[in-house]
């Protein structure tokens, strides 16, 4: 008996060892990839400051961008402003819609919502961004051009296109959040004589607020990183616009538009890497905000 046990235990040990090593290698690969990307972007992006002697403050606050000109100008504020204003405005448009959609799907019509509405909304997430951009360019931009002064391109068009793109992200997270409401809270509220609307407004939404905000921040993060669709409708003029309907640019669109036209290692190219570094840093900030919100929502 004891002998056979000894016999069996060996292949188990090998299996255990192979499993451990394999999973460890996978995680090592992931970590190395992420660290090398961070290192690469950082080293390239920081060259602007160390080799080309551009002041960090000047880059972050300057409003004139012409790195290939004479003298070269490195004011990235218009891009930073464009990125923030489009993504935050997109979240402002999308969040209330997403919350209401989630409330409808979970609280008002759970059967119909889960079966038909949720798949439709998730479908939105699968549409390629170039399609969104194209629709924005051929529908939203002409519409804005007719209604508002200006060319129709700008922050408003960009934010509107982005809001549709991030709607599925926020809705999905909000739906999951509402579905995970601790049991008994709704009954507790009903039993005190609240109506359904009072229960949703006073109990369901406030209780799940941190989780809902997680969805909003993830939506903003996605909008912040989106390049193509925004680039197609925003106009790409590197200055801070005076209205929502004036051509401007974002970090992502500035990078995608010029990356192919600059020589690797040139001042202009390095400046674009600095924009990428700002973008990446902001993404990290968003991730940290999400982590913080998630910690808060676990009471």
């Amino acid at each position: 008996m004891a002998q056979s046990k000894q016999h069996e235990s060996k292949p188990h040990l090998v299996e255990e060892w192979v499993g451990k090593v394999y999973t460890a290698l996978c995680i090592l690969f992931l970590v190395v990839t992420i660290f090398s990307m961070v290192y690469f972007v950082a080293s390239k992006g920081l060259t602007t400051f160390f080799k080309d002697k551009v002041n960090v403050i000047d880059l972050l606050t300057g409003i004139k961008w012409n790195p290939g000109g004479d003298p070269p100008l490195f004011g990235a504020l218009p891009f930073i402003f464009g990125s923030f204003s489009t993504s935050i405005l997109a979240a402002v448009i999308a969040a209330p819609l997403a919350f209401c959609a989630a409330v409808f799907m979970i609280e008002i019509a759970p059967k119909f919502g889960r079966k038909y509405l949720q798949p439709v909304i998730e479908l939105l997430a699968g549409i390629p961004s170039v399609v969104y951009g194209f629709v924005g360019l051929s529908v939203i931009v002409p519409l804005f051009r007719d209604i508002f002064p200006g060319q129709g391109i700008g922050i408003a068009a960009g934010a509107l296109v982005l809001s549709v793109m991030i709607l599925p992200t926020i809705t999905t997270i909000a739906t999951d959040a509402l579905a995970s409401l601790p049991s008994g809270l709704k009954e507790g509220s009903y039993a005190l004589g609240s109506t359904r609307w009072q229960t949703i407004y006073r109990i369901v939404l406030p209780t799940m607020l941190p989780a809902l905000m997680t969805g909003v921040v993830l939506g903003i993060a996605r909008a912040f990183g989106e390049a193509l669709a925004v680039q197609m409708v925003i106009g790409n003029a590197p200055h801070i616009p005076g209205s929502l309907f004036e051509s401007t640019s974002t970090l992502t669109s500035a990078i995608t538009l010029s990356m192919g036209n600059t020589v690797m290692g040139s001042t202009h190219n390095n400046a674009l890497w600095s924009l990428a570094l700002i973008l990446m840093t902001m993404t990290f900030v968003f991730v940290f905000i999400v982590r913080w919100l998630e910690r808060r929502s676990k009471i």
Partner: protein
Amino acid sequence: MHEIGLSAKNLYVSYNDKPAVKNVSLDFASKQVTALIGPSGCGKSTFLRSLNRMNDTIPGAKVTGEIWIGDENINSPKTDVVSLRQKIGMVWQRPNPFHKSIYENIAFGPRYHGIKNKKKLDEIVEESLKKAALWNETKDRLHTSALALSGGQQQRLCIARSIAVKPSIILMDEPASALDPVSTAKIEELITELKQEYCIIIVTHNMQQAARISEKTAFFLMGDLVEYDSTDKMFTDPQKKQTSDYISGRFG
């Protein structure tokens, strides 16, 4: 004889056409504790939930029959469920405080029934917490989160919360089954205290608890009301064989 607080007549409850409570008629005296006992799935909780129309919120649930409070049949479609639930408080097995401060938990109900005056709300909060024997433990931390309270304290908060809307009847669905013995003793003490003012109907799995705190006991089995009598009589001299089998632990 005590005044009748609530009376169910020929109550029949089904979930998706499967009967859960069959033709039960029961009178509950005010200022008394009535215990509903029986094995799991016997329909006692379902019956309790019908009394304040909580089954309305469950899709597929159907409740027929009459439930009388005074001269009003509250199981009629014309009944205003919102004001009805103001008359009937409810406490669940697991404490379910809202994710708000202790004060806000209590003030939640009264505020929705139109009390906006801050002083009046303060009074209600204090009075409700005192009645639920929670005032001394919480008076210095009224505006801190209710979730920081212990399980037993949370359950007493839930009782205080239901008292705050000034009901005449309180339904309790195994209010102590998720609590430790010390907290359970406190809840039982509280129930004995509260029955001087309210008609209390309590579902319990704990036979000793039913014997300790209730005046009358109803025994349910498979959706039927088997026996209903004074608690003393039920536990010493039950009339039906099923009752004595259940009480003496021969099944269930």
